[in-house]
């Protein structure tokens, strides 16, 4: 049970499909320009997880890591990974499908409660 990170049903479905296609996957969240702050979904063999990456949970059997610098600012938030349509210039494995994982975060309440988070419906 992950108090810190959750996934929408649509995103979970996409992860399952990508796992079948690519094998074991992980999520890595960092920052920076251009696609920064979008969760990157990568093959576990492709990305070297560092000693200072923080694992904040697991979704559909995929560990979710946050870069140590970003973790400082995300540690008191509850994160929801969703999916949206959109052409992105990203090395993330879902990108060629014309999809992109998105990340919504909000202040975490008590970890024993699961926060009700709405599905990412696209542009407001």
């Amino acid at each position, binding site marked *: 049970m992950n108090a810190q990170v959750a996934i929408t049903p649509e995103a979970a479905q996409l992860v399952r499909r990508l796992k079948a296609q690519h094998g074991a996957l992980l999520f890595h969240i960092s920052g920076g320009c*251009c696609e*920064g702050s979008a969760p990157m979904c990568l093959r576990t063999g492709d990305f070297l997880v560092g000693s200072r990456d923080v694992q904040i949970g697991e979704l559909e059997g995929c560990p979710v890591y946050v870069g140590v610098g970003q973790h400082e600012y995300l540690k008191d938030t509850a994160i929801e990974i969703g999916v949206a349509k959109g052409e992105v*210039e990203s090395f993330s494995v879902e990108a060629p499908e014309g999809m*992109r994982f998105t990340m919504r975060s909000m202040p975490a309440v008590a970890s024993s409660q699961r926060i009700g988070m709405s599905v990412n419906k696209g542009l407001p």
Partner: protein
Amino acid sequence: MVVTEKALETFRIPIVLKKRYDNFINGTFVPPVQGQYFTDISPINGKPLCEVARSTAEDVEKALDAAHAAKDKWGRTAPAERARLLNLVADRIDQNLELLAKAETIDNGKPLRETLAADIPLASDHFRYFAACIRAEEGSLAELDNDTVAYHFKEPLGVVGQIIPWNFPLLMAAWKLAPALAAGNCVVIKPASETPLSLIILMGLIADVLPPGVLNVVNGKGAEVGKPLAANPRIAKIAFTGETTTGRLIMQYASENIIPMTLELGGKSPNIFFADVMEADDEFFDKVLEGFALFAFNKGEVCTCPSRALVQASIFDKFMERAIARVEKIKVGNPLDPSTMMGAQASSTQLEKILRYIDYGKQEGAKCVTGGERARLDGDFAEGYYVKPTVFVGHNKMRIFQEEIFGPVLSVTTFKTTEEAIAIGNDTLYGLGAGVWSRDGNTAYRVGRELKAGRVWTNCYHAYPAHAAFGGYKQSGFGRETHKMMLDHYQQTKNLLVSYSKKALGFF
């Protein structure tokens, strides 16, 4: 870089696009091996512009074949001849200023004012700058003793890979290509799939200039072309500008082949305003106010966006009154309209991210003093990706002060002392840019030297002249562009250690 309204009035060239753009390999346009294409969308109106080659690993290999076939001859071409050709490239850019500016605007969404006055002229100047640098370059020699001389030659690396972002498509291409080509390397470059247009159009304009195989453009998606290029054992160096996780990924690929890199990963640049700027309501103060508003330049999609403003507490209220008024004069609209100051965000992804961060800012308790929502345009542009320039007031530990938003969102906080300004300025993961505004030269100098940023604009901002080194500290990356030192990143040193003695050493 002053744009006169009269000059813009004469701009009436319609732009005719091809239905489809391929790769540019070995001096000619080549369709992708697997015959796949993706659709290039304009952020101005959300509509498709054209189709572009969606390459795969096979296309990268073709490009590398061409580059390797050309590299020995290009590497041995006299610097003066390489310079002549780079100057020809610059000439072609200048001769096609309006075409390239318009292509850049419709592909990226940035205003025509900026592409005409900044992006395209800076790109052509960059080729001229490195043409000049390579002609003036020398190696060195040292006479070590009476019989021994060390000769140091700078030699090209060979074939290099480059992956560029979508925020300044042609200019980022120029920053990477000019030094690499000047130094005698052959290049395989992958433009961002959001913005392939200006570079591929340029290839059509310079197809006859460079020898075939010297410059190769492979279009496609980062996830499909990025690794085949960056992890390829046939490149001697990889250059990348983009976000942090991908930067790490690229570094890993480089480590597999033990090749050097240059990397630029973003920033959260502080723009620091000392109380003395308000000592007079003069021309300089007008410049200061523009400096504050420059977070909106290129709609905030700049790695060096001055996305944090640090205003000295003693002037805060009066300063903000004038500064916000200045921000509210920013005209958001159709980027092709010469009077538009801020255009469309580059994609729906970016727009969504910006709106999300605006939401986070409000949730964290930052005060939104202007903007804070999507900008709705009429008619043709209703589906475009427009946002109102937004200013928040808060404190430096908030997420909107620490995370790179990459949009026209400014986070403002105050400081009391110079030491506090420096501390807040440096309290960030990044270290790409910073701005310091003060009428006192001593303050400006001392603060600039204390800030952990590679580029400290002092009484200015968003100027990118060639011959001023540009690059990051900390998590913003490493390597310095736009300066002749970039040639070092694209060369290796050959030491000929020559003995003029005829006597054996006496060991064996």
